[in-house]
Every structure is written in C-alpha cells, then in structure tokens.
C-alpha cells in the first residue's frame, strides 16, 4: 500500500465535499435533498477520515440535524420530510462524529426503533392513527424479529442492521430481543453463503454487509459459513481490481465498502488483492476537481467519495484514519463510545 502513498488527492476531495453544499441548484442536488442526512454522514465521515472535520461548522450541522428530528424520536432525511430509520442511523452517526450523542433523548429514540421492530406484524392493517399514539412499547417484540423502516411497514435486513447499529451506539441493545433479531437475519441467508433483503432474496454485497455487520455487533458471526461466503465475496474482485456487488455485474467503488467490510468481519480479506483494489479506487478520483466516482471517468458524487475513502481506510492506506467496519465510524469515535464511559 505504501507504493500508492501520495496518490490520494486529499485536499481536492476536501474541497469537493465542502463545495457540494454550495451547488444546490442542479437537478441532481434537488433530487437528493430528501436524503441530505445520508449525504451529511457520507461527507462528514469522509472529512474525518481525511483528518479535516474541523473545516465544518459543528454547531450549524448539529442544529440542522436536530431540526430533522420528528416528535416520535426518529429522524427525517431533511427538514419537513418524514422520519425513517435510514436517516435515523445517519443522524446518530453524525452526532457521534462530533461526540455529541448527549444531545439526544436516548430512551425516546431507542423506543422509537424498538417500535419499528414491534409494529411489523401489524403492517398490513396498520393505521396512521398510531402515529399520534403514545408509545409505550417496552417489552414488545415482533414475532419474526424483523424491523420495518418506518410506520409503513417495509421490511428489509437493511433495517435490522440499522436498528442494531443504532442501539449499539446508544448502549441500548438490551432493549430488543437480539436472539429474535438474529434469527430473522439468519432466515435471509442463502445457499451461496450470502444474504438477501428478506427470506429468499438474492445475495447482494450491500445486503451482506448489513447482515454480517448486524451479526458482528450481536456477537453472532458463528451463523456464517466463513469459507463459503468468503469465496463468494472474494470472487467479486474482477481483473480491473474493482469489486462488483453480485456475480456478472460491473465493478463499482461503493462495493469497496460493502465487500471489504464483510470480508474483514469474517477474517477473509486476505483473499483479495488489496493493492489492485486500492489502484482501482485511486483511478476513480477526479484528479482535477476532487471527488470519487463509481468507475474511472464517471461523474463523481459524495456517496462514492465516501465509499472510496472508507475503502482505502479499510485497506490501511497511509495517512487515513482507521474506520470500524461494523459500526461504520472512525475507530477513535467508536473507542470513545465503548471505552470512555464514565
């Protein structure tokens, strides 16, 4: 990896990320407004990995994040939008980056997540009047252990991961029945060793990351056939060095994150060629204007910039902060959460 040292355009990427906020008028940026919370997480985590998070105004960010919080406790993708678990995790992660988890009413938020676990069984008959109902749900669990993304009942293992990761960061994992949650994830395991969105769903590297990480955080990785899944995952690396997310698909920088984290968590990351992958990611940089794209010479965006830099961090690229593969936050942030408790 040292051979490639100096090829990461740190300054340009920082400039690019800071510039996104100023380019609000293009169609792409308006079309992404509803997931600005994810964007904030991607951009800010990238800046932190690059050692440049102090370039943003922390108070401004936190005040905006808190404006996105709904009275139920969950967060929306942007001010005025509805709360969803996808944005709730990003909000918690952004607050964690600034060591500001203490601004949250942790019990209210974790009850809200727990509720998404409980409500699923009523999804078909669910009525929005529940929105206004007082949430008193301690001890309630959904029968199959799955989680919904919001009150509208979409079920997906992505939401299982998010709930588990969020509760872990908030020290509230004991609120859910993790055994049931794990059971549901295991029911989504396929014969190729991977995982899908719901039982029977095809294996996909993004989904595998969610399931493997959720099992990691709950100490349940023994449910995985590491050699079988490891072979499937390492075969995602193509001759170009890049990784795809499913067999016979094109490589994409974002899989540097989904595949690498999964391989690391099951201790099989040595089965791919790390230098070749780092080469691929570096080749996807826009060396003029900063930012990283899905493939060389494509248009850059903050999503791929984050996954590219985070991927390089997982590859131990010189000069980058290390990132925790399961909680998706810098290791120093995670250490603070888990080991600095008073």
């Amino acid at each position: 990896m040292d051979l490639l040292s100096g090829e990461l355009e740190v300054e340009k990427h920082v400039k690019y990320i800071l510039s996104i906020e100023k380019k609000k008028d293009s169609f792409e940026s308006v079309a992404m407004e509803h997931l600005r919370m994810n964007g904030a997480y991607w951009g800010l985590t990238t800046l932190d990995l690059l050692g440049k998070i102090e370039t943003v105004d922390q108070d401004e960010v936190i005040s905006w994040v808190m404006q996105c919080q709904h009275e139920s406790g969950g967060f929306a993708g942007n001010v005025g939008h509805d709360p969803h678990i996808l944005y709730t995790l990003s909000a918690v992660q952004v607050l964690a980056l600034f060591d500001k988890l203490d601004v949250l009413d942790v019990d209210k938020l974790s009850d809200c997540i727990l509720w998404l676990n409980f409500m699923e069984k009523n999804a078909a008959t669910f009525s929005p009047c529940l929105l206004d109902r007082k949430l008193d749900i301690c001890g309630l669990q959904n029968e199959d252990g799955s989680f919904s993304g919001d009150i509208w009942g979409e079920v997906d293992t992505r939401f299982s991961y998010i709930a588990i990761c969020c509760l872990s960061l908030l020290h509230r994992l004991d609120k859910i029945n993790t055994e049931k949650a794990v059971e549901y994830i295991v029911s989504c395991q396929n014969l190729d060793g991977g995982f899908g969105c719901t039982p029977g769903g095809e294996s996909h590297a993004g989904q595998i990351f969610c399931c493997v990480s959720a099992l990691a955080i709950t100490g349940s990785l023994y449910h995985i056939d590491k050699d079988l899944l490891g072979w499937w995952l390492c075969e995602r690396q193509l001759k170009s060095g890049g990784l795809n997310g499913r067999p016979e698909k094109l490589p994409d920088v974002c899989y540097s994150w989904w595949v690498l984290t999964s391989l690391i968590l099951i201790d099989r990351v040595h089965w791919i060629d790390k230098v070749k992958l780092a080469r691929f990611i570096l080749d996807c940089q826009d060396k003029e204007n900063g930012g990283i794209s899905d493939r060389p010479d494509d248009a850059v965006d903050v999503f791929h910039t984050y996954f590219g830099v985070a991927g390089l961090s997982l590859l131990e690229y010189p000069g980058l902060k290390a990132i925790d593969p399961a909680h998706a936050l810098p290791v120093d942030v995670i250490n603070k959460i888990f080991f600095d408790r008073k």
Partner: protein
Amino acid sequence: MHGQPRKPLNPDDDAASIAKAAKLRNLQSQLLHNHHNKIYTKEALEISWKLLELNPEIYTGWNYRKLAVEHNLQAKTDPESIKSIVDEELKLVETALSRNYKSYGAWHHRKWILNKGFSSFDHEFRLLNKFQKADSRNFHAWNYRRFVTAMKNIPEKEELQYTTDMINSNFSNYSAWHNRSVILSNLLKRKAEGFTSKENVLAEEYDLVHQAVFVDPDDQSGWFYHLWLLEQTVTPDAPMLVSSWPIHDSDMIVSFKSNLDETLLSTSTRYCSESGTFPLILYFNQPVEGVSSSTVTVNFMFCKEDLLWRPLSTTNSKKSHAWVTHLKFPDKEDNSSKVYPVEVRLGHSQGIISSSGSHYNFPSRFAFKVTLQCVELEAAEGGSGMKMLDWGDGSFQICEDLPLDLSPILSLDQLKISRNHEPTALHFLIETITTEIALFRELLLEIKCCKIGKLTLARLLIAHDAIMTYNTPVEYKKVNTEEVLELFTDLMKLDPTHSSYYKDEHSLVLMEKVISNRKSMSKHCFFYGGSSSSNLCNSVCLRLNKLSLSKIGSFEHLLWVQMLDLSHNELHSIEGLEAMQLLSSLNLGYNRFSSFTALEPLRSLQTLKVLDISYNEIGVHSIDTTRYLCSSPLSHTVEDNCDFDEYARDDVKIADTWEAVMFFKGLQLRQLNMTGNAISDDNFRILLLKLLPKLKWLDGKGVH
C-alpha cells in the same frame, strides 16, 4: 450517481438542469405543504403524482399517497370508487417504476396497496414480465415475484419451471439460479411429490448446470450452484463422530497432584492432571449441538453425577465440532495404580443435531482404560523446578520409529462407528463424484487454463478422498493429494488476484497430508530434550514448522497433541485450535498474527503454560480482522468493562489495552515470548506482569 460519464461543465446543460431543478423543487415544496396540512384534494394528489413521476425516490411522497388513500377510502364505500382509488395508485407505481425500476419506495407502495385486499393480483405477472424482461437480474422484481407467487399460492413447481425457462433462455442469470436453489431446497426439504429422491433431483440439476459451466466457464452464474450441488451430494445429512480423546482401546496413565511445573511430563498416553480431572473430547464431522449427559452415556465408576459438556468454540455458539467434558477422580488414597475402564456410548437416543437439523443416529461406542498414578512432589523427576523451554532445533530428537502408543492417530475401525451412507446412496455418491471428475478433466483438456475447471476438480478430488476414507473398511490411502496440491499451485499462478484463497486451501491439504497417516506424521514427531535431558524427556512435540502453512485444520487428528510447534509459517489465524484441549506448549513465532483477538482460540486452553508469539505483526495494523469474531465489548459478548479499568493507568488508555487484558487474563502462562512485535514496550511489559502473575519467563529472561 451510477454509470454517468464525467464531463466538463456545459452552460447549456447547466441551464436546463437548473430549470428542471426549479420545477422539482416547486413540486416538492407543494407536496410537503399538502402533507403537513393533510390536504388530499384531487389537485393536491395531482402534484404528488407529478413529483413521484419525476423522482420516485422521494419517500415522503409515497407516505403522503398512503395517507391520502386511507383518507379517501374512509369517504368511499362503493366498489367502483374504491377500485378507482386503488387503480390510480397501481398506475402511479408503474409509471414511477418505468422511470426507475430500482425504487424501493415504489415497489413497497404497490405491495402496500395490494395488501389492502381491494385488488386482484392478476395483472402482477404482466408487470413482472415487463420489468424482468427489461432487466432479468433486477432483484426488486424477483423479490416482488416471490411476494406475488406467495399471495397467489402459485405451486413451487411452476416457479421452478419459470427458473428453468429463464436459465434456458440465458444461463448467465445468477438471479434465476438463486431462485432455483431456494425453491428446490424447499421442495427437497418437505419431500414434495416428485422430489422424494434427492439422488434423482440432484442428477438432473447436474445436467442443467453443466450446460452453463461448460458453455462459458468464465461466467460465474453456474459456479455457486455447482458448489451447492456438490455440497448437497457429499455432505451426509446426519452428523458423525470422527475422533475422540482418549481414543478407543487406549491405555491412559493419568498422574495427578503432581508438581504444577511438571505438566510437561505428559506424553500422548500420559496425562498430568492438576485438578484430579482429565478431559474427554468428542470431535464431529460438522458442528453439532445437544451433546449432554442425556445424549452421551459415560460409564466410569467414579462418575456419579451428570457430566457437564461444553462446546469448544470461540464464540458463544451452542454448536461446535468439538465438545469436552472432564472426568473427575475422588481423593487419591485408595485408587493409585489401579486400572479403571471407561466406556462412552452415543447415538442411542436422539438429541445431537447438526446445523441442518439432522440427528446423530448411528449408535456407537468406544472404550479405554485409565491407570491412575499418583506422583509425589519430591519423587517427580527434576522436581527442583522447571527449566525454560527452548524451541531451538537442538532441543529436539527425531523419533524414527514412533511407538504405536505414541501415535494415537485415529483409526476409524477403532472408533467402531457405523458406516454413514446407505449402500444405494453411497453408490450414487461415488458414481456422481467419479462422473464429475471425468467431466472436469475433459473440460481441462479442452481449456487448459480454466480456473473454475481446476478449482472444481480440486474440490471433487478432495471430496472423493474424503468419501473413500470414511467408507472403506481398511485404512484408505488418499490417492489424490498430490494432484490436488498441484492444482492449487497452478491456480495461484493462473489467478493471482485470489492467490491467497488457493494458498489457504493448499495449506489445508498439505497439513492433512502430513498428519493423517502414521508414517508421514512420525517424520514430524520429535522427543523434546533428548534422552539425557531431565524432566522434559518423553514429551513428544509435533513440529509443523517451516511448512509455509497459511491456514491450519485437521484438528480431529490432533486432539492428543500437548506440544506443538507452528513457527516459521504464514499463519494469521488459528481458527479451530480451541479443540486441542491438551495443549500445554505452543510456538507461533515467526508468523503473521496481527492482533491478540486473532489468538482468541487459546483462551479456552486451560492447560497452556508456554506460548511463543515472537516476531509476529501484533500492533502493526490499524484494521483488526478478528475484532468481531472474539469476545469483546464491541460485539456485546463481554458482561461489563470494569475489568479493563483495573488495568488502565493515566498514561494507558483502555482502548489500547483491552484486547491484551481480555486475552491474557484467563491464561495461566509460565513462559511467554513476544519479542519482535510492534506492541512490546515497557508499559506493555508492566501490564503483562500484572496480568500473568504466574509468569516465570518473559521474552527469554527470568521474570524475577
């Protein structure tokens, strides 16, 4: 943004984009206004339609539509009005999906509306055909298809046929292969009509997948399906016992209450016990649960209470290949030098279950004898104190003719297990593997550098040897080993990107070759200390050093080992080593271990006294690949962190020391060498001495 070319800014494009953006922003703010004010008029709905048509990803828009539907349904009760409300939503979803068929929100909206029960599912296959034709790998569409077939109660056989059609029209469709594996395993599991014979079903599947693999061997679509078929073919449903310690027919000498330092006296048939107990280990061919005093009967005259069995795994899994219990002797006075028989029986009642849910169902027994020998402290050889163990070549003397009782390699005859496969099943198994081997050899004749051909052939040859080992009455000599090793060596060159994968596979085969038969194993067994040396003589050390192993396995053959040298290899993991419960001295020096968490298996070895982990990479890496595989606060497998506080100091952070604390705290080490690691400094030395109060030698020097 996926797949969009990077291009220089063009003012014209820019202006168009800004105009379009303004329109989108306008629609979006109108939608949010209507949403917040609960306005569900026709005009308001029109706005949300336009917005979702333009950008189906705006999830709040779908939420608004759902609230509007609920609101409007309350007002209407006549079927016509209900139908028009529902149809409107279905139409919107289809329009949105035509714009972006990967929109989670749109697909979910359709499920939500159909789940209300006002509409039939009859049009759903038309919709599916449209989107599955546009992209036959669209996993949203496949998920939706499974939802629709479940709602419509479509027979699984019809859906199986659908996958056949999809595969026949284009075998490079991993999604179809995947769905096929889901449906087929369901049909096999519930033994549906036409699927009662696993053999017949598998035979047909092999035919199908051969077409895919042989037409374009580089296309991965069929690879994983073929591997799955192979596993279905060779893995017996029921778990079986493959080895134990002690082994059948052995005569054990257990000396106990000896000087604590004398544990190295142990040899393979002599076991020194500190606590008046000795371990009984069972090793199965696959991870099992349910080993307990009710599923395993142990007849031993001192065994009055129910035995407590423990799975040997580094996680909190209830399943494991290896299980251990401890047999306890009463006080020593009146039983010294007497011989006590021990009999172990299992499989007589159900309860030992594999991951796939199959029961251990082969009634089997093994028996051995135990002679107790009480060693008085002063009578012990060299009782004046243990010397530091020296791993240097000079300390070892080869034992050319390993006495029989010193090479307790498992013989299946000795274990008295029943044969695992039914004769017809066994016939099918051998025939299938033989045919597959022939086919892949043919493929390799045509395409010499065919990666999947070589890999599959290697796997088939390994499977063939394994089957013959377990099903031949006499000791079977593995005939394919050399060819397999050669195939993996070729693969490392042919596919350098994945060379470490082949290297690991190569190591496993090499290791098995070395230890799975008496003759080759004896070349690696050495007496420690030589004949003249004092207290350590007769200790047999298995030396697997300098073999460039990157991965180890075959633990079922190693249960007896008490002294093991794995130094000068390329190991970064010792997964599975926890089964070697008798280990007291271990050399892992000059390998690639990069963290204490990677050594987690050693935490369950209560007899480990000597450990060498010098010249590894502990402390070098920023990313720890075993952090979540071990007990840790991060994986929520440690009760509380207060232990860590005890070892923290002002200048030493818990975050930097907790792994070392976790690892060393439970160990009873007398000798530790960890020179040559990035982590060893003065602070760390102080921590070690605190963690290991019984330590006598650290890094080659006396501690006191």
